[in-house]
């Protein structure tokens, strides 16, 4: 049974496209469902504001949808574009592109639901702040999308890079690892960034005078919560663009695949944890603005400790790429 490269690439592209939109649909649906649930709770509290809440819910859901639209775009490209197949590495690359975008869309979709839901509830609690709340929600959920954009970038690079000059062993492990590193690590940062933004929208509704400090600390917290996704992106870039010498053994390919899995999975926990830590800080800065210095310091120390396991994962990844 002799198949040519083109057949295998088509097979991998169809499987990757299915996984891309299959996984990619999970996050956005959960995030939007959460937003709708909060909107219902808000309307039952004050039915007179139903129109406002409805508008805010739709805007928030539209942003949460964007990650799954990225996944849909990648799936369409994988299904319908004629990918030039020059080597068997392309088979692994297009499959990895689907995995990267599928996993990468989960976190951003779930995350964007938190600020949208909190904004809906906040709207009925503090109607005068609706403008500020909408702005905060938009900034917060836009930042949540960055991990899925990283995954999109990696997916495009994997689809359109020509790997024909690279040796099949061990490059196939590197490209599959790159997809997993960028995709899985985006889950944590997306959810984490969303938890922070949700706490910030809630805090502004509770204490409107704290809006500027809450927004600042939210952005700080979100930026730090993005670091695991950035480490994942970094490892993915190294895996894609480093030239690996041809090998006669299996071990180097498995080391490169393991490196991607390590950074990908290792980024999930710290991303979520930093988001939770920062949401505690933001929530209480809104309630007790006088103590902003102490709270920010404790929040940053807590986030730094939560980051440590992501750094261990990166160290092991880099050892797997460069040392063994």
């Amino acid at each position: 049974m002799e198949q040519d490269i083109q057949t295998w690439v088509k097979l991998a592209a169809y499987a990757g496209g299915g996984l891309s939109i299959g996984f990619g649909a999970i996050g956005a649906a959960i995030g939007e469902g959460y937003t709708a649930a909060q909107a219902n709770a808000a309307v039952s509290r004050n039915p007179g504001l139903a129109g406002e809440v409805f508008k805010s819910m739709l805007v928030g859901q539209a942003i949460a949808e964007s990650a799954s639209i990225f996944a849909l775009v990648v799936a369409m490209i994988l299904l319908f574009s004629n990918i030039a197949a020059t080597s068997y590495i392309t088979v692994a690359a297009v499959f990895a592109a689907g995995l990267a975008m599928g996993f990468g869309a989960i976190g951003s979709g779930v995350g964007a639901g938190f600020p949208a839901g909190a904004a809906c509830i906040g709207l009925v609690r503090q109607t005068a702040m609706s403008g500020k709340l909408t702005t905060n929600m938009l900034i917060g959920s836009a930042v949540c999308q960055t991990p899925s954009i990283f995954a999109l970038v990696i997916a495009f690079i994997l689809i359109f890079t020509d790997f024909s000059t690279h040796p099949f062993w061990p490059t196939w492990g590197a490209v599959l690892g790159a997809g997993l590193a960028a995709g899985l690590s985006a889950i944590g940062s997306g959810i984490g960034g969303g938890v922070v933004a949700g706490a910030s929208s809630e805090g502004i509704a509770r204490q409107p005078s704290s809006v500027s400090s809450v927004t600042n600390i939210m952005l700080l917290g979100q930026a730090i919560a993005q670091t695991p996704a950035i480490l994942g992106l970094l490892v993915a870039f190294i895996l894609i663009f480093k030239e690996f010498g041809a090998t006669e053994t299996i071990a180097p390919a498995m080391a490169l695949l393991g490196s991607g899995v390590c950074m990908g999975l290792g980024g999930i926990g710290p991303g979520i944890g930093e988001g939770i830590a920062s949401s505690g800080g933001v929530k209480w800065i809104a309630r007790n603005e006088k103590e902003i210095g102490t709270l920010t310091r404790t929040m940053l120390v807590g986030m730094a400790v939560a980051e440590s396991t992501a750094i261990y994962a990166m160290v092991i990844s880099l050892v797997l790429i460069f040392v063994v």
Partner: protein
Amino acid sequence: MAIEGADLIKAAAFLGAGISMGLGAIGPGVGEGMAAAKACEAIGRNPKEAGLLTRTMLVGQAVSESTGIYSLVVSLLLLFVV
């Protein structure tokens, strides 16, 4: 290409090292985040005890970190010793 036993074992050790550190990093990350969030809450309620609360948070996080360090040790053993 011919597959040899020693090569196969090395391949499994490398993949296992990655999976060990990757999965092992999830729990401590989330747990330490929860500890930090509660510390912020407690400081917000009672700012006078900020020093004591930060110390307690750090001790709790250090304990929660231990499983992450176990994963790191197992990964390094798989990479360099086994």
